[in-house]
């Protein structure tokens, strides 16, 4: 489990997030949602070990401060929002960087084919010889996901769950690939790993998330299951937008249409 207690981050004198209590359990896809500037990315960056914070944070019951960078890299992989490169690396060379920590969990026999399998998963079969810089933004994002998947290929290794941190993994993707990527994340969680994803699309969130953490002005507004979290009054308060939350017949899953804005 990834757990944070009383977590605050200040950049300069400005407090970006304050007194966050946060949990992400293995076996679940935890979505962080909230309006622009609510502190979602700052929270994820603190949990990735990129930002100094006050308060406690632990991963599988081990406090962050006791873990070296390479030990963290064995437990969690992080997908950034976008990555641009200055040098002409091929797609394969980028995906192989995911094997840097040498703890992907694939057998030594499979390690050479791992980049190809990861690329096939993100629907980029046959792209390994292309130059990364030639690809579209959405394709680049999927190459980076393939790299991240290589880093923690086995969701559970030696009995220890591992984690994917995804910062807006589908923001630059078309609808088909949004679904493919969300299914990859979901199945990583179903196989025993943990997923933390920052998402903007409330419908994809409702469809795939096991738990939603709603951020508002640098604090956690509430956390819980999608059907409890997505309500008319909470969306009005957090997003300042009067939307009607609908309920899908059958599954009972909530959905939000922008057309319902009053």
């Amino acid at each position, binding site marked *: 489990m990834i757990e944070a207690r009383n977590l605050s981050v200040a950049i300069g004198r400005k407090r970006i997030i304050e007194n966050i209590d946060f949990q992400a359990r293995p076996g679940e896809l935890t979505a962080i949602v909230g309006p622009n500037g609510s502190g979602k990315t700052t929270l994820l960056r603190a949990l990735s070990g990129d930002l100094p914070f006050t308060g406690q944070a632990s991963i599988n019951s081990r406090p962050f401060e006791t873990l070296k960078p390479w030990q963290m890299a064995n437990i969690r992989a992080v997908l950034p929002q976008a990555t641009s490169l*200055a040098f002409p*690396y091929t797609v*394969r*060379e980028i995906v192989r960087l995911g094997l840097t920590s040498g703890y992907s969990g694939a057998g030594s026999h499979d390690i050479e084919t791992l980049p190809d399998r990861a690329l096939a998963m993100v629907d980029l079969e046959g792209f390994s010889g292309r130059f990364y810089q030639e690809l579209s933004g959405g394709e680049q994002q999927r190459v980076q996901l393939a790299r991240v998947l290589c880093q923690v290929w086995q969701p559970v290794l030696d009995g220890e769950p591992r984690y994917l941190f995804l910062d807006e993994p589908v923001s630059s993707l078309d609808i088909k690939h949004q679904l493919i990527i969300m299914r990859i994340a979901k199945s990583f969680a179903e196989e025993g790993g943990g997923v933390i994803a920052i998402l903007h699309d409330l419908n994809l969130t409702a469809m795939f998330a096991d738990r939603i953490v709603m951020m508002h002005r640098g604090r956690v507004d509430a956390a819980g299951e999608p059907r409890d979290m997505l309500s008319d009054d909470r969306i009005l308060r957090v997003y300042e937008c009067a939307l009607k939350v609908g309920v899908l017949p059958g599954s009972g899953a909530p959905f939000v249409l922008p057309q319902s804005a009053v």
Partner: protein
Amino acid sequence: MLMRTEFVRTIADGAGPQHGDRSGMARGVIALLAVLLIATALFSLTAGASDASAWGLVKYWLFSTELSQRDRLIVMDIRLPRIFMGVLIGSALAVSGAVMQGLFRNPLADPGLVGVSSGASVGALATIIFGGTVLAPAAAVLGIYTLPVMAFLTSLVTTFLLYGIATRRGQTSVATMLLAGIALAALGVALTGALIYIADDRQLRDLMFWQMGSLAGATWTKIAASGPIILLSLIAAPFLGRGLNGLALGEASAHHLGIPVQRLKNVAIVTVAAAVGASVAMSGGIGFVGIIVPHLLRLVIGPDHRYLLPASALLGSILLLLADAVSRTIVAPAELPIGIVTALAGAPFFLWILLRRRGIVDL
């Protein structure tokens, strides 16, 4: 972002059984460059104003035949140290260029362009001029190492300043880096100018030649002084390869891959400063090797630093030996400073890189 040429695409596509894997090709290129370097070094032994022959030398080494006193002097005390110095300096300049470009994540970062070489010059000049007076205590302790160590220290300060100015919260601004580099280089030129102004006539002629960059003054003593520092930086470089590949994704992503980013950056900066400082101490500023060599190699073997760094050392040595051969034959029996040769060839090449990137990648 479409900046690739068909030429490069063909190379990448044809790179072995697994598409996009250029490591086999890179190893082949490194082996080829090693052979070429040996050939170039042998050629350099024979080329020059005197006609001391390579064959006489081979016979001398293999069969212990007699070598004339004159040939022995020319080969052992003039050409051989010169070749050693060319190899040391060429590899130092090319590797420091490649490491710096990896560190700043930009193919235009070159120690000569962004003021690191000027920084080293200040330390070296100060040692030449004040070695007998203000710096005498340091000179007493460091002996022949005073010059390279002083040049290393001032280039280290320059590199740290440059990195501190250009990088903020893990983001390196290329515009800031280049502009700060211009400012630091200008400051270095001003300081060296001031030092030259107070130099006496005896020092002045040496300084001018040294500043233009030349291998002409190669001696075993100079090599003994600067060589170890360069060798240390060349030994450190291979350990940077994996880390610099991760750093290409940005500092945060490198950290997420488990790379100790802060240590990597420190080692990279010290490596660059040591290589540049020691080579400037030996021969003055020799420009453009650090930008041309890694750029050419990236076109052929790709930017994987595990292969780029050793290949740069080899190609840098080869190019510098060739430039030196040109510099001492083109106006024979006189010599052109080698810095002029590399600048004449390198500056147009640098403009070509800029033209290729213009409008495609934001500088």
